């Protein structure tokens, strides 16, 4: 029998599986798909905006106290969040991925990076892939934005125009797509694989050296390799002699693919199987305990029995919730109670960009201090079920720009609650 069955293979489920497996538990991950990492920027956003406020958050761990009381971050507190993030950094580092924090203030407060978005807005990010940090908009070197003619998912002119309007010095240059591939339908992931060939990489370095001026930094679409990413960044830096950075593209996201691959590889080393295409179809419970869940396979449903179950199916975005035209709104795997109003008229506000967000996205699975789902009266639904990530109630991770942070810290916190240990308090680096 398993010690822990994790349902959901997004950032939250994988972070939790890693933490529990490291503590010696026998863990399996089953999922319908593979999470939303492939659509995101590959950054770790802890808290970018407070509800209703226009200005980005500068010190996200200090700003936590301004979140509503019921927010999962408030349950955890800054100390446990900090150490969960340290666990994440250690996990990605041992997988060969370098995630960096902004240099702290003199008083030790962590700051958000301010990185250019694929539309030229400013993204507040706590941990950035090393390849993105030279794009920080607090730096003042002029930017040379390099695009590729015919690449559909990256628009240097739009980014440059918006950055200029925000006071930055930016110029653009286009290189032929033929430098990387002869195909005109290549997406960003295919281009990233194309750039792993040494001759192609060398050709890009030569082309960049010819257009860059001394004192500039070069911004490129995030396509600089997958497996060979770090070597590629180093080689292009050497070839040009200036700082280089990636800007995330529209999906598919190469930085997200790198992160997903790294986490899968780490779990494989710990002997954890991650199975996609296995959505939960049925479950059996007796009293206050979940006995088994059955998932889809290519043939008949497969029963999994475990001592503990973690639900990390990601809410609306991940397919963990669904709804119908009558306003019925439900959790699909275990039929857990949700805080979402069962009335469609209460789901939306008239403005798409409403700074308070849409009420329907703020609802979800309510949990207690140990991340165990509770009902409307605050009583635990099952004694052996935990929940983490995008499905949690009282937060809107996309509105708050806290999607990855919420996934990682609640996943790791739930795993610690299952193992029965405190999150280790990391040395403050």
């Amino acid at each position, binding site marked *: 029998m398993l010690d822990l069955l994790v349902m959901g293979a997004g950032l939250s489920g994988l972070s939790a599986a890693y933490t529990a497996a490291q503590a010696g538990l026998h863990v399996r991950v089953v999922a319908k798909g593979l999470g939303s990492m492939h*659509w995101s*920027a590959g950054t770790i956003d802890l808290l970018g905006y407070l509800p209703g406020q226009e200005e980005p958050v500068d010190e996200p761990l200090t700003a936590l106290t301004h979140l509503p009381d019921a927010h999962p971050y408030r349950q955890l507190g800054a100390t446990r969040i900090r150490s969960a993030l340290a666990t994440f950094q250690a996990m990605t580092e041992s997988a060969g991925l370098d995630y960096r924090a902004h240099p702290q203030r003199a008083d030790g407060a962590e700051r958000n990076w301010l990185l250019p978005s694929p539309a030229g807005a400013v993204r507040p990010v706590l941990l950035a892939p090393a390849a993105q940090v030279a794009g920080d908009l607090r730096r003042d070197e002029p930017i040379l934005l390099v695009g590729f003619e015919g690449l559909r998912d990256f628009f240097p002119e739009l980014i440059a125009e*918006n950055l200029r309007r925000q006071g930055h010095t930016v110029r653009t240059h286009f290189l032929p797509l033929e430098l990387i591939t002869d195909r005109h339908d290549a997406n960003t992931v295919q281009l990233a694989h194309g750039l792993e060939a040494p001759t192609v990489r060398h050709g890009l370095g030569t082309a960049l050296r010819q257009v860059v001026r001394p004192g500039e930094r070069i911004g490129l679409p995030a396509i600089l390799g997958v497996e060979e990413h770090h070597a590629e960044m180093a080689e292009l830096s050497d070839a040009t002699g200036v700082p280089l950075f990636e800007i995330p593209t529209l999906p598919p996201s190469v930085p997200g693919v790198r992160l997903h691959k790294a986490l899968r590889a780490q779990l494989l080393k710990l002997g954890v199987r991650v199975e996609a295409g296995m959505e939960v179809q049925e479950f059996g419970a007796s009293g206050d305990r979940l006995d088994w869940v059955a998932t889809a396979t290519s043939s008949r449903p497969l029963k999994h029995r475990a001592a503990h179950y973690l639900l990390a199916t990601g809410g609306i975005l991940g397919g963990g919730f*669904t709804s*119908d035209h009558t306003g019925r709104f439900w959790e699909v795997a275990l039929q857990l109670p949700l805080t979402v109003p069962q009335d469609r008229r209460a789901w939306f506000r008239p*403005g*798409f960009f409403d700074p308070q967000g849409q009420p329907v996205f703020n609802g979800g699975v309510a949990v207690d201090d140990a991340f165990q789902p509770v009902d409307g009266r605050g009583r635990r639904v099952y004694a052996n079920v935990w929940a983490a990530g995008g499905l949690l109630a009282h937060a809107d991770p996309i509105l708050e*720009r806290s999607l990855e942070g919420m996934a990682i810290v609640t996943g790791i916190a739930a795993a610690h609650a299952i193992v029965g240990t405190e999150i280790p308090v990391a040395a403050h680096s």
Partner: protein
Amino acid sequence: MQSPQHIRPGEKNGATPATNPQGATPNLLLRDFLQERWKGLTPILWGQQLKQERLDELIYLSLMNADHLPLDETVSPLTEFYKTDTTPGGPNALQSDDAAAQAHEEAGHA
């Protein structure tokens, strides 16, 4: 789908010309496009379509941060809408929640 403000006198079917008469910036046009699409989508948002809408939010808000693009002082037909306070419970709130239910009930009893 267009809001009534977009329909200008003398224009066939209210279609806006390909050029941009207000001199609005791409950021403003993107914001207004997303708002008009939101208006058209909300009546049919549930199930898979709601999931798709959340993916749109992931791309436009989380990835592109399109709600924090510089807008300068340019105006568009939706500028007044954005100045309106639509806080739930406020004077200009969407006819939703209890208000709509009450209006519906009153209509039924009349």
